[in-house]
């Protein structure tokens, strides 16, 4: 009924100023502020010039490269403190031992078969608000050898947040935002470590799949990156749906050709829009169609490999260039955050 009540003031403003009033629930009012519910933004800024040269030693992150990382999103950790990393390592190693010998008490802090280290990766962040990444490593000691003998790394995982201001700005002090978790190693260890974090910091892990749409973003973004050495080919893998046998189509493009194509598509340097990504992919599709008479747009993009990184839709990533590490992580952080909120 028009004129029934005075017009409401800015709805958004009302909520911001009166956080818990005007709602039938207590709970966060943020998250909703985006109002997108998982939709991708129509445009993204490219990460600023690679940071690695200035303030980070590529050697220190080299061990993250050329490994397959399984991606998870993690909700903010409750009462996590990076001044307690050594304690966490002790507790976690006791937890692992306890999980392995169910039912028996395990002393905290003694030498156990599996050594746990929890450390911080201070370089691995995008902005100053970001929490430094946390690395968890499990290594095994063979029972026979002495303490100083070589330890074998059996599992590693790290939490990180690169330009995750969207999330961290809105979370109270008690919570630590490290929305992206990457694991390499047996899933049984991922499960134990993840369970421990879930129990200890009341957080929630979820596999982070990458949608075909986001894979096209990666394809476009990574094509535009400069790589010094002669780069390997860009490869896109498509899977054809609704077939009795799985059929994958691999589409390899010379990186310079792809770069040339991308340069004609991209208008504003440093910024990419959804439209540009679509045009880029459409060009690739129509080229393919000209030769093979197959409409790739009717298939599902499952994997993108470039010289920068390779990503699989199941949520598996491999970093190949340390200088673009944070750039890739920034996009992944964004995806993780959108899965949390």
């Amino acid at each position, binding site marked *: 009924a028009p004129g029934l*009540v005075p017009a409401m003031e800015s709805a958004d403003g*009302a909520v911001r*100023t009166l956080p818990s009033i005007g709602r039938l629930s207590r709970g*966060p*009012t943020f998250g909703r502020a985006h109002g997108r519910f998982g939709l991708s933004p129509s445009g993204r800024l490219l990460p600023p010039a690679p940071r690695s040269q200035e303030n980070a030693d590529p050697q220190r992150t080299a061990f993250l490269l050329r490994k397959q990382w399984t991606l998870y999103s993690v909700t903010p950790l409750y009462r996590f403190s990076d001044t307690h990393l050594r304690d966490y390592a002790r507790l976690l190693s006791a937890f692992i031992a306890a999980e392995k010998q169910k039912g028996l008490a395990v002393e905290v*802090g003694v030498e156990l078969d599996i050594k746990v280290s929890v450390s911080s990766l201070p370089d691995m962040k995008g902005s100053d608000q970001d929490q430094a990444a946390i690395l968890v490593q499990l290594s095994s000691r063979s029972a026979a050898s002495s303490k100083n003998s070589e330890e074998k790394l059996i599992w590693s995982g790290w939490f990180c947040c690169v330009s995750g201001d969207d999330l961290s700005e809105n979370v109270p002090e008690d919570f630590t935002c490290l929305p992206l978790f990457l694991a390499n190693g047996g899933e049984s260890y991922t499960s134990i470590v993840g369970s421990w974090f879930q129990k200890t910091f009341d957080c929630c892990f979820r596999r982070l799949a990458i949608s075909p749409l986001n894979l096209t973003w990666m394809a476009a973004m990574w094509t535009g990156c400069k790589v010094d050495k002669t780069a390997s080919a860009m490869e896109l893998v498509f899977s054809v749906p609704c077939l009795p046998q799985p059929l994958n189509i691999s589409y390899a493009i010379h990186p310079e050709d792809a770069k040339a194509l991308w340069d004609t598509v991209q208008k504003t340097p440093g910024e990419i829009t959804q439209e540009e990504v679509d045009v880029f992919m459409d060009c690739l599709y129509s080229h393919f169609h000209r030769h093979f008479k197959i409409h790739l747009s009717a298939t599902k993009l499952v994997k993108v490999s470039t010289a920068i990184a390779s990503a699989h839709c199941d949520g598996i990533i491999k970093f190949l260039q340390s200088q673009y590490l944070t750039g890739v992580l920034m996009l992944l952080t964004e995806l993780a955050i959108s899965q949390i909120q």
Partner: protein
Amino acid sequence: MQRRQSSKTPKQPLQIHHKNQTDLSAWRKGGRIDPEKSVQNHQSPTNQKSDSKQDSLEQALSYFEKVQDHVSLKNNVLQKHLTTVESIALQRGLPPEGFDVLLNVALSGKLADTVNTRLLKSLVPASVIPETSVVSSVSWLCVSKCSGNIQLLFLRWLITVFDFIDHKEQLHALYGFFFSFLQDEKMCPYVCHLLYLLTRKESVKPFRIRRLLDLQAKMGMQSHLQALLSLYKLFCPELVTITLPGKMKTYFKNSEGPWKAAINAVRRRNQENSPVLQPLFLGTAQPQSRKRKWNTQLIIPASSTNKNNLEEDREKNRVDLYSTNESFPVEQLQTFSQLLQNIHHLEFPSQMGSVLTNPLLLHYMNCTKDESIYLRLYYWMGQTLQEECTWCVADNNQYEEEFKDFLETVYKTECFLQEGFSSCEEFLYKSLPLWDGFCCRSQILRLVSWIPLSSFSEMKSHLYDPLAQLFFTSSLYFKCSVLESLKELLQNWLNWHVIHLDSESDSQVHSLNTTLSGLVNVVAELIHFVGWISTVALRLENNPTFLLYFILDFYETVCDMYLRYNLPLLIMPPAGVFYPALLSMDSVSLNQLCYIMYRYRTNLVAAKENELSKTKILQFKFSSQTYQEYNQYIIAMVGCLWTSSVFQKDIHPQGLRMDDELLKKTTVQEFKTSFNIVYHPAMMGYAVLFLQQAWPDDTTFNFSLIKGKKWNWYLEYLYAQGLKGLKVFIESSINRVSQASHSKAGNVQV
């Protein structure tokens, strides 16, 4: 015996016990299941079988309770009952009350050892084992009536089922008794294991350490002694100064015996059969049988104390998980009085999700203001809902039952807390566009009723649009369910508003302006939405009474918002609802409409009076349009039911006003009166019955006889038939003094 058994069964063939014959709660309630309750469950031969099984278990238990000493092994009765106990134990486990009887008999030495062994081996718990039965068996152990082998077997059993004992306080009090058994060389390893499970920091005493060291000196380095010593050292490093080997492959002999596999099998079977979420008394021992990836199982975590208290222990420079903390451990929280006594030092569990299955913690949650607990719950629930949603995630459909249960739990929690979860709201917004309207229907629609009221509304695109699409394309039943849940949504909002008003008056919080106007807008939006879908649905479905009932039910809340909920808003139903109800073929709908119009009138009059008296400055006034709409409807209604002037007087643009010329073409004779309380199709049945009673001999059905005094009698007759809505409407809205002349509607003056 056999014959008695078989003659007994046919007597109660239809008294079927639940499909949840294995439902643990049934056992807990005291074993017998209320037959009345169980009738609703479908019947099948297996149920019947299990019914008789339960009887035979009871017979066996009462037999063992009264059994005399020295019954011969070959005694048929003994053998029969023994077999019964064994087979039931292995199939579905024993109820808590069975343990007392069986332990008593097995440890008292009354029967032969082979029988005792068989009895002990069949002590598989279906749910929990009462602590009292364990305590009394320890006293049997102390008087050593049974043989050494039985003692050992009992200890092994106790170790295996330790986690199933419902309480352990009294058991802890017996620590010294167990400790004294250490001197028995055969029992020592098992007693060590048991002590290992029982030991708390306060159990570590210097004299016990000395005793253990003595034993070690006597028996040599035994792994079980070392295990206990290392635990003592762990608790009190200052008391145990000896060095112990750091790593130990196995401390204790495997004492799992025959029970472990049986317990697992019973648990698995019970979980399969029972759709209810069992309280998880063993948080870590979740069945991992399903082939799902890590962390994709729907598990509501068990309540456990938050162990992440490193800050406080910092000065000690070591992480101390075992120190008796100031705060009361949530695991021990069992009763409401405990909650009250410990509320000042209670801490929330390490995983907030566990509060869903813990009503005591929900109480506690209700009275804390800490926002972080809601945030923790928000994240956990949001992620779980998304991950488990059966229509959003591929391959999840096989877990629909599980997901339904979860949604049910969430809904119950919302009802308990009387507030909706924002994670749930977001889940609905995300998943409704993909919903088929079928999967988990009643759960989803119930959750809709708890969507939080927010003063900035995303409702239209996220709730109303997807819901409308489903609404228009689904069955009549679905439409009614949607209307029902939207009515509850409205009521929840209004209740919240009333409570909020109360708390507002206590403390002078920010000025109401923004939120109240926001609230009014959001509520108005909901009511307009329901008005719209109702209009369309009535046309689509051709005005069924069933649907009309749900629509009018919604308006029963709407018409009373001002007086009952103190909300300065009244919205009239759209013409598409009003006229179908007014011309309904069914007296129920007409009566309901009359009641609603009466309440509208009461509310509007009250509002007008408030406005005129100006006792307080009113921020809101009803627009004149609301009064106007009401008046138009009331004119139509009175014209229809009372003055037979609706075709001339109805001024509503979508109303019944019609030219006499047109009406004459219908060739209806008395078209003017055709909708008054005598001729109205919804009322004519009453008129016929009234005529039959008033003029039993007249068979011509001369309705025109109902006039004057008879008209009043007829009204009384209608009221006596239960048409209360009509009564209050006529008494309030029709000025009966000027009855002789065409009575005028007692309109609210605008």
